[in-house]
């Protein structure tokens, strides 16, 4: 009477299906024909499924160790400060959120466009600080006097020596691309012993002559101009003023050629495609670490707090450095706790599903595939092959058993 309802539910919803699934895995998709181990062979020959298996092993190799390490670092940092609760809550909070919701959050974070995806926006800020993007994203020479392309720089064909004035006209620049501080372009005076010149937007609304600096044509400030020798090496470099003019002083010998440097044309940052085929798995792993770091931190911090202070003090009194104390005393004492975290993570990672299906857009789910996801997609997500799906489930089951066996053995030893 006490046991009846529970045993009925366990029997119908767990025991019976488990046996059914094992049997089902030896039948074809319709369930009519016995096919032996064919489904298992498919599991290890089909590309999509192989990717899933390989990815899942990567998950097992990387994520539990990473989460444990981060948890340890956080726990140790926390030990040293007093008002740690706020930090603990911040890091632990993702644990309460479902892995699915966490997936939605990170899908948003990983958006490719830097004006939308937070991660790429941050990358863009760092990138701009390290190497500012060029002033112009696209431009073409206005006459045939200039040759080359944005990649190698645009080179003025005419040879220059001291006293020369170079005119480098560009077109094909969108108005929005013209730097805000640009002024009317001016052809500079020749300079004895130097080379002067102008870089300008050789475009006059309503017409005008190509190759000539005219009224209403703007100089292009901030453009990098190189002076190149015969061999094409850059011997001097300068940037243009607001009216587009530039000056190279003390020029000796020659002949030289003036060129607009390639750094002028660097494309604006378009965003790293985190959700693309090649980065999707590491990206999802990172979001998973974001979720689980708090769990590892809290468990390890509890373990740290349980270490008797006298032991650490004794080691310090004996002259051990902090690092030695940490490696020789703290870590060994902490080993059981670290193992618990690690094994817990192994089991969760083996069955990872929600976060993958949430972060990975449909088009890259083949690349992001893991075993649990492959099982679901094969059985219910369009393929609808129950035979193969059952085989994947059994495979997952077989992988879970040894890890849990370790867990149970350890558990028994502790009790």
């Amino acid at each position, binding site marked *: 009477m006490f046991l009846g309802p529970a045993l009925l539910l366990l029997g119908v*919803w767990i025991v019976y299906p488990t046996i059914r699934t094992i049997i089902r895995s030896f039948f074809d998709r319709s369930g009519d024909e016995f096919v032996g181990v064919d489904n298992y062979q498919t599991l290890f020959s089909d590309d999509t499924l192989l990717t899933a298996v390989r990815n899942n092993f990567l998950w097992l190799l990387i994520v539990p160790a990473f989460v444990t390490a981060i948890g340890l670092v956080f726990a140790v940092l926390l030990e040293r400060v007093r008002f740690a609760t706020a930090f603990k809550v911040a890091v632990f909070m993702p644990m309460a959120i479902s892995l699915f919701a966490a997936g939605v959050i990170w899908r948003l974070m990983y958006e490719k466009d830097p004006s939308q995806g937070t991660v790429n926006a941050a990358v863009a800020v760092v990138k701009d600080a390290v190497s500012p993007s060029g002033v112009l994203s696209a431009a073409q020479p206005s006459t045939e006097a200039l040759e080359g392309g944005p990649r190698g720089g645009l080179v003025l064909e005419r040879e220059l020596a001291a006293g020369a004035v170079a005119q480098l006209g560009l077109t094909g620049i969108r108005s929005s691309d013209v730097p805000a501080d640009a002024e009317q372009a001016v052809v500079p005076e020749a300079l004895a012993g130097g080379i002067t010149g102008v870089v300008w937007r050789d475009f006059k609304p309503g017409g005008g002559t190509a190759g000539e600096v005219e009224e209403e044509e703007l100089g292009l400030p901030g453009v990098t101009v190189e002076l190149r020798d015969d061999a094409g090496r850059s011997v001097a470099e300068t940037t243009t003023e607001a009216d587009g003019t530039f000056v190279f002083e003390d020029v000796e010998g020659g002949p030289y050629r003036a060129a607009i440097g390639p750094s002028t044309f660097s494309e604006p940052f378009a965003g790293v495609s985190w959700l693309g085929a090649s980065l999707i798995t590491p990206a999802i792993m990172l979001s998973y670490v974001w979720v689980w770091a708090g769990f590892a931190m809290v468990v390890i911090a509890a373990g740290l707090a349980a270490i008797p202070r006298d032991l650490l003090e004794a080691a310090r009194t004996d002259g051990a450095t902090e690092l030695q104390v940490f490696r020789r005393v703290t870590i060994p004492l902490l080993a059981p706790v670290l193992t618990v975290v690690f094994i817990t993570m192994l089991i969760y990672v083996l069955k990872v599903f929600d976060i993958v299906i949430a972060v990975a857009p449909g088009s890259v789910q083949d690349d992001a595939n893991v075993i649990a996801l492959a099982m679901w997609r094969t059985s*219910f997500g369009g393929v609808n092959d129950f035979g193969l799906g059952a085989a994947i489930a059994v495979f997952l089951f077989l992988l879970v058993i040894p890890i849990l066996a370790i867990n149970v053995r350890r558990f028994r030893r502790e009790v």
Partner: protein
Amino acid sequence: MTTAEIEAGRVEAREPTAAKIVRYLSKAPVYIVLVFLGLLWLVPTIGLFFTSLLDSSVVGRAGWWEIFSKPSLGTLENYGEILDNEAITSALMTTLWVSIGSTILPIFLAALAAYAFAWLEFPGRDWLFLIVVALLVVPIQMALIPIFSLYNDLGLFDTIIGLILFHTAFGLPFAIFLLRNFFIGIPRDLLEAARIDGASEMRIFFRLILPLGLPAIASLAIFQFLWVWNDLLVALTFARDTQPITVAIFSQLRQFSANLEIIAPAAFVSLAIPLVVFFAFQRYFVEGLLAGSVK
């Protein structure tokens, strides 16, 4: 507080102010790192929240941080929209019913079974208990296909009851395991006294065991509730029209940017409830997670 900590406190009290300042300064890098990391961990969730506030004319194109420079972009309209959206509100109600049912039912049944395993004598008791605990290793995936067929035959597919029964069955092994271990710690004398007084086993269960087991039951309930509320896999397999909120959001993901004005607020509502539960009952949570790994 340990003795060591108390001693440390005394030492600090005697420390001159200057030394104190020096000590705090030397810790400054640690604080800076912690503040940075803490913010790093908060940003994604905050990002989702502010995205959910973005005006529908810019959501899906603007970054959430733009709301700080242009507060006019912020609006509660998206939340108004999803509250008017029948699909979302009914999904929230479905999730609520499934979560409540899947919390009460397994815990009640598990408590009954745990009592039997702990205090009733019957042949094969320990073997049976071992088998029940062994069921912990069975991954949910092992049950999906046969139960899917079974539900189709029984008409349980796409019903709240079907979801509850599935969650109940998979919640049982752990609940039985935990409660049995808790009940067995109840002093034998109490039970003997009640039995001598002529109380029936049912009476003992309701009047004695359940009240005494409350701490364990509470922590189990919180964990089970969050587990079911956050579930996607089971819901995705056994629900179509009667869908919980996770499935409702999932079906919008196909066009992520275009549907962001629904996805962001719905996702935030769906995670706000677990957050409230979590902050209210934090301490029960970690234990549950450690144990939940066997699910």
